[in-house]
Each structure stands twice: as C-alpha cells, then as structure tokens.
C-alpha cells in the first residue's frame, strides 16, 4: 500500500508542480490519441453506417472480419507499421518511423475496427426504426447514411470514445513505431513502461494516475459538450 500512497503523493506533486516533462508527455499522448481518434472516426463512423444500409454479397464476411480485427494485438500492428515505414519498407522514403505520425498511423489501425463495429451495432437499431420512412421518402444512399449518422450521433460518440479509450492506454504498437524517444515520441504509456522497467514504481504509478485522470476528463468533456446523458431519453 505504501507504494500507492507514495505514488499518489508523487502524482500530485508532478501535476500541481506542472512538471514540464510531465506536461510534454501528457500533451503528446493527447495529441497522438486525439488525432488518431478523429481520423479513425472519420473512417469508421461512415463505414459503420454504410455497412448497415447496404446489402451486398460479402457483407457478413466483411462484418465478421471487422469484428475479429477488434481483437488485433497492438504489438502485431506495431510490427506491421514498423515494417511498412522502415527504411527498406514501401513507405520508408517518407521517413516517418519513430515520429508521432507513425504512432498515429498505428493507433488508427488499431481503433478503426472498434469504431466501425460499435457504430455498426448502434446504427443498425436506428436503421430498423427508420428503414420504412427513408425508403418511402426515396432518400438516396448518401442521405440515408447521413440521416443515420446525424440522428445516431450520441451512440456514435460512444463508439468514438471507446476508440479513444483503447488508443490512450495502448502501449505495444506505439512503443515499436515511436521508439519512446525522450522529448520526441515519449507518451504516458511508454513512459510508464520505461519507469516500471527501471524500477521507479512510484513515478510509473504517478504517470498511471495522470493517464486515468486524463481519460476521465476527456470523457466528461465530450459528454458535457455534446449534452449526452442529460435528458431522460436519447
């Protein structure tokens, strides 16, 4: 227990002392994960809705694959992105390896399936509701998707937040493609891994508390801004 009290104390000291390293690491964590979440949402939310309104031959298979990809091991994604971005890889010329951009790419790959899958589930129920009306009104495919996204925005927000949650706590992939370089690609999770390895459990735990606190803050902020979980319905 001593360790935990000590860590809490250290966390408080780091946070309220605005430790410059901590601020930098935290901001980079946020920057990488928020960017990845935005990109993955831009891909995943419309794709989830699109999979609902379109009946095509291999739809079931596509959905099964996406659901399976939710469990994609981050380390494998990291390895894959590493190979793609390494000097000898196909995208080596871009020089992206060991940059925050590489970390964003890896996280996008990890969380897009989650966002697609959750939004697909949510939109499917809405579609069952709206189906007859949208067909009767002769809505185009695009209009159907846009209507479902608009009216299902609260459920979609949950999907995006689930993606954010997975990405912010992810360490395997960004460790490989980012390299945990101080002042360049070090984020909260990789720093925690490092400090734990060094035996600095207090600092590692403190960083962990910062991570959890930040995740909670982001969720609260998003719900606050979007006014979800307020009215009695929706």
């Amino acid at each position, binding site marked *: 227990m001593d360790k935990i009290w000590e860590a809490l104390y250290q966390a408080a000291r780091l946070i309220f002392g605005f430790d410059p390293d901590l601020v930098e690491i935290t901001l980079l964590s946020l920057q990488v994960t928020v960017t990845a979440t935005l990109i993955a949402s831009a891909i995943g939310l419309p794709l989830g809705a699109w999979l609902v309104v379109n009946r095509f031959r291999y739809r079931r298979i596509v959905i099964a694959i996406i659901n399976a990809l939710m469990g994609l091991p981050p380390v494998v994604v990291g390895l894959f992105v590493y190979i793609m971005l390494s000097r000898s890889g196909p995208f080596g010329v871009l020089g992206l390896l060991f940059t925050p951009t590489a970390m964003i790419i890896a996280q996008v790959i990890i969380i897009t399936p989650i966002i697609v899958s959750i939004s697909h589930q949510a939109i499917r129920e809405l579609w069952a509701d709206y189906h007859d009306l949208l067909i009767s009104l002769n809505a185009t495919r695009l209009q159907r998707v846009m209507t479902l996204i608009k*009216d299902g925005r609260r459920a979609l927000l949950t999907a995006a937040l689930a993606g954010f949650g997975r990405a912010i706590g992810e360490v395997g992939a960004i460790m490989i493609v980012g390299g945990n370089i101080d002042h360049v690609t070090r984020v909260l999770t990789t720093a925690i891994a490092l400090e734990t390895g060094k035996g600095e459990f207090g600092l590692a735990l403190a960083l962990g508390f910062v991570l959890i606190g930040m995740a909670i803050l982001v969720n609260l902020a998003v719900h606050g801004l979007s006014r979800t979980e307020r009215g009695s319905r929706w």
Partner: protein
Amino acid sequence: MVAPILPLNLTSIEVRRSGRTILGPLSHRLEGRGISILMGPNGSGKTTLLKTMHGIERPTRGQIDWQITAEEARLRQAFVFQTPTILRRSVLDNIAFPLLLRGVPRKSAQTTAAELGEKVGLGKVLQQSAMVLSGGEKQKLALARALILAPDVLFLDEPCANLDSRATRDIEAILCDARDRGTRIVMATHDHGQARRLADEIWFLHAGKLIESTPKTQFFDAPQSAMARAYLKGDLLP
C-alpha cells in the same frame, strides 16, 4: 401544367413471400378524386396492397402503371405507417425532413414545416423532441410530414389504430382538408365508423383477394359479396 399521376393501373399483381401468396392475383384501377378505404380482416393484404402501390413492396408478378414513370410517381406520393416512424429530432425537424431530402434550404423548410405543424395542432410542441409526443401527436406529426410535399396520392395504413376519438377526429379533419385540396387518399382501416365518415369508395379485401370495390353507400347498405355481408354483420370470416 403537371402531368397527371392517376389513374394507377394494377394488372394481376401478386405478392408471394416464402412460398405463401399474401396478395393477389389482383387487378384494379385507382382513379378520380376522394378517399378510398381498404377494409378487410387482419392478414387480408391491406398493408401489402398499400405498400405495393406505393412501391416499397415489390410484387412477385404483375404490373403497376402510373401515368408517369415509377420514379417520378414515387416523388408525388406519401405513406403514413401504422406505427409512425419518429426521427430522433425535434417535431419541427421531423416535419421538415422530406423537404430537406429534396434539397430545400433549411430555413425555408422549417418555415413551411412550422406552418403545417401549426395547422395540424402541433404548434405548441414544435421545438420539443418528437420522441416524447403522445401517440396521437406522433401520428399527426407523421401526417404533417407526409403532407408537406403536397403529394398527389397519400397512402395511410390504419393511421388511427390505438388512438382515442379526439385524436381520430383531428386526423380525419386533416385528411378531409387534404382531400379537398385534391390529394387522392387511399387508406386502410378496421373502423367501420371511420370508413362511413370518410370513404367515397370501399375496397374490400379478403385472403389477399379484392372481393369488391364499390361506392360507400352501396357497400354498407347492399354489399354484393357474401363475404362482405358477413364482415359487416360482424361474423368472423374464415
């Protein structure tokens, strides 16, 4: 002058689902003005016939011919479902929705929707979420949403099922008003009183077949078929 959409010719249409014939073969013609009421027991094919005419149910066989192409015809009809589909939006945005789909600018769509909402008696709740409306209000909303495009033909599937007499009266008044402005109405109902009040002609269906189609007075006073006589008497049909 817009090309007339009616008459609608149904030529031996038949709807089969999982090996069972649920409608037809049926040939008929929808023309003239006024209100046609579809009557018949549950499962007689009223809903299927409405949906087939509207074009959201595909017939297994047969022809559906409007005076214009099917695509154009779709844009000039509306459908009110038995259970109104309520968009998770405000009442105003629900009513304005068809206009938005047609590319009408938001502001003017909302102005039109507000006027119509006022007219059907939803003036006080326009800004509320449509999800919290009562059953009668939801059906009025669905009706306003169907009427906002001023359709030439309006299909309704038991719009007053489960509504009290006050809501039913309001909805009938809206329907009569639409009829007077030239909308051809085809509506299914189980309510004999409602059929007597609104109908110009009755289509009587049983087991997927159109048993008779006669003017209202004739249907209620001297039905031609034994089936319709039994139905009106309140007998349980086979």
